[in-house]
């Protein structure tokens, strides 16, 4: 084959054991309990952390599983098959808290923070969004002022996944208001047991209810200067580099959610008879199923191909090597593209599944209804699809020609 594209034996075994684990151990725990109360689901989270699912991409010397970004994509795909909320918990923990600490952390920061996070003993979160700064992330106002060997942080962060339970939070704060986004924002590793940290409220959401979303406050919270992640003033580089990889793995999650919806629709269409035969044998339904399957297949190719690039990119960043600008742009563009496409594909596939299942698709207790409520979040978080389009479009127009 000229264009070899296959998972390694290691990733194949990982997927197989992970799928069995999720189906046999976690799926039975997916009941209405956490979904109705929107409480943090410690029971499945504990089981998953013991299984080694909370440090998948990080190398073993820091307590991780060493399965890289492709392994992390497989993780989100397989967890999303069972529950998008659980995938969000692992994603917020791994992709945007653990990953930036690994990528930009000093040796000491890595050794202090990564092992307990990888074991899942500590839960991670990422705090960027503020009431006035969503898509306009450069407009953040959380302030970090230097005071001797410490920084004093004040401000409010919203929509923090895992924010109510997290032990370690990656926080973006303004260190120099005059410079703004270009050199005035710094990333901090914040321990939530520090004085001045408060969880002010929890969101009541329509979907991904097994993942908790909190508003958090910093009130004269003091962090030592050694908790600066990366260089002072380079907070956006830290956040954006983490999001570049996070987006591609989200796309893998969307592929998992879509597969679940397709399988549900397929099972229903094979069992349900109308006009004397299973509806799966009616051409209209069969065409729909064919379209769903085709969309998932093409998306999986693009997603894992992109993750292969992200892996190379991250290996360079973690080793402190210079990354070629055009390579970084390519990774960033492709991860934005697969995120947009996969999240919209998953929403579409879930809707098609609902059409096939008719009223059953909307009925509580059949998991498709939950899928319909869970699907839209992927179009919103880690940079809305509109912002992704803006970034992809702006670069395209600047370049003046299509670039693969």
């Amino acid at each position: 084959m000229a264009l070899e594209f296959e998972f390694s034996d290691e990733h194949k075994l990982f997927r197989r054991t992970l799928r069995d684990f999720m189906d046999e151990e976690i799926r039975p725990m997916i009941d209405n309990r956490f979904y109705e109360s929107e409480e943090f689901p410690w029971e499945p989270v504990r089981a998953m952390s013991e299984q080694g699912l909370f440090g998948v991409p990080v190398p073993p010397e820091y307590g991780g599983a060493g399965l890289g970004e492709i392994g992390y994509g497989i993780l989100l795909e397989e967890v999303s098959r069972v529950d998008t909320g659980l995938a969000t918990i692992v994603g917020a923990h791994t992709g945007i808290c653990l990953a930036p600490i690994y990528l930009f952390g000093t040796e000491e920061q890595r050794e202090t923070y990564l092992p307990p996070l990888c074991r899942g003993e500590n839960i991670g979160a990422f705090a960027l969004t503020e009431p006035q700064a969503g898509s306009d992330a450069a407009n953040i106002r959380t302030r970090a002022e230097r005071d001797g060997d410490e920084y004093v942080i004040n401000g409010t962060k919203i929509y923090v996944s895992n924010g109510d339970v997290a032990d370690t939070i990656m926080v973006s704060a303004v260190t120099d208001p005059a410079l703004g986004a270009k050199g005035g924002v710094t990333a901090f590793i914040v321990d939530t047991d520090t004085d001045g940290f408060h969880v002010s409220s929890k969101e009541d959401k329509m979907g991904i209810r097994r993942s908790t979303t909190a508003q958090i406050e910093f009130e004269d919270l003091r962090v030592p200067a050694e908790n600066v992640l990366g260089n002072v003033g380079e907070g956006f580089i830290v956040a954006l580099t983490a999001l570049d990889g996070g987006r591609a793995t989200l796309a893998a999650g969307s592929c998992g959610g879509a597969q679940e919806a397709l399988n549900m629709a397929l099972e229903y269409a094979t069992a349900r008879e109308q006009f004397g035969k299973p509806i799966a044998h009616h051409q209209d339904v069969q065409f729909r199923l064919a379209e769903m399957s085709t969309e998932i297949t093409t998306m999986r190719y693009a997603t894992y191909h992109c993750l292969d690039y992200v892996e190379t990119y991250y290996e360079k960043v973690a080793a402190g090597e210079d990354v070629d600008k055009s390579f970084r742009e390519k990774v960033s563009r492709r991860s934005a593209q697969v995120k947009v496409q996969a999240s919209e594909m998953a929403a579409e596939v879930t809707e098609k599944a609902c059409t096939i299942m008719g009223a059953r698709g909307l009925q509580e207790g059949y998991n498709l209804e939950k899928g319909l409520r869970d699907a839209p979040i992927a179009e919103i978080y880690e940079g809305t699809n509109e912002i992704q389009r803006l970034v992809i479009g702006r670069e395209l127009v600047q370049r003046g020609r299509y670039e693969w």
Partner: protein
Amino acid sequence: MVNIVVAVKHVPQQDNVRISKRTGKPLVDLAEGRMNPLGKKALETGLRLAQQDPNSEVTTLSLGPKEAEPTLRESLAMGADRALLVTDPLLEGSDGLGTAKALAAVVKQLGNVDIVLTGARTSDRYAGHVGPAMAAILGWEIATHGQSAKLTDEGIRFEKVLTSGTVATLTVDTPCLLSMGTHAPKPRHATTWGVHAAHETDALERWNLDDLGLAKDEVGPSAQATTQRSIEPVPEKERDTEAFTGDPDDVAESLPRRLASRGLLR
């Protein structure tokens, strides 16, 4: 210190064997294979025995082509200390006896083995004679179709479920061979850390016929003790459902008679 060897076979993913129309032989697709399910239960039993004694070592052993590697790596990922793959073109085409000879030879070469565990049968061949043949060659005690095994001061406490549904408890002296059946505990899931460690390049040990101390004519097709005449699909069992209607008490009372008249009760 307890030295445990678990024999695991890499078998096709599907239990339904397809037969080639051209050759009349079963089509074996090992590329998408898996660990023999009962072998996996034997490994789980071995790992549990090892937990009873911190000094014990669990070695998994497989006879097969290079395609069998994933099964041995999975055994390491689940917690085995060593994994040994015996591959040799001369071993291909061995029957159950040849396989047992080769596996027993490995056990002898390893030396100081206390317990050999196997699945009661493989999902692809379903013969169930490799384990007993190994025990015979080694001259060891054997207990088959177990549901659990525990180390005790008197020996191995071995439980098995009899066809009557009752549980028989045996005490077996070491060295011994134990085969595990369907009632053995559900195998653990390999952890993510284990999966990665099992794929280190030097994680597997590879042996060939020269390492076994066996003569070339003791194994392979020429040394077969059994001949396979043919392989044919078995017709599916006929099933029938009958509903008895009427007053529940009357139906219950008539049930033994009705079952007996159909030869289902004696």
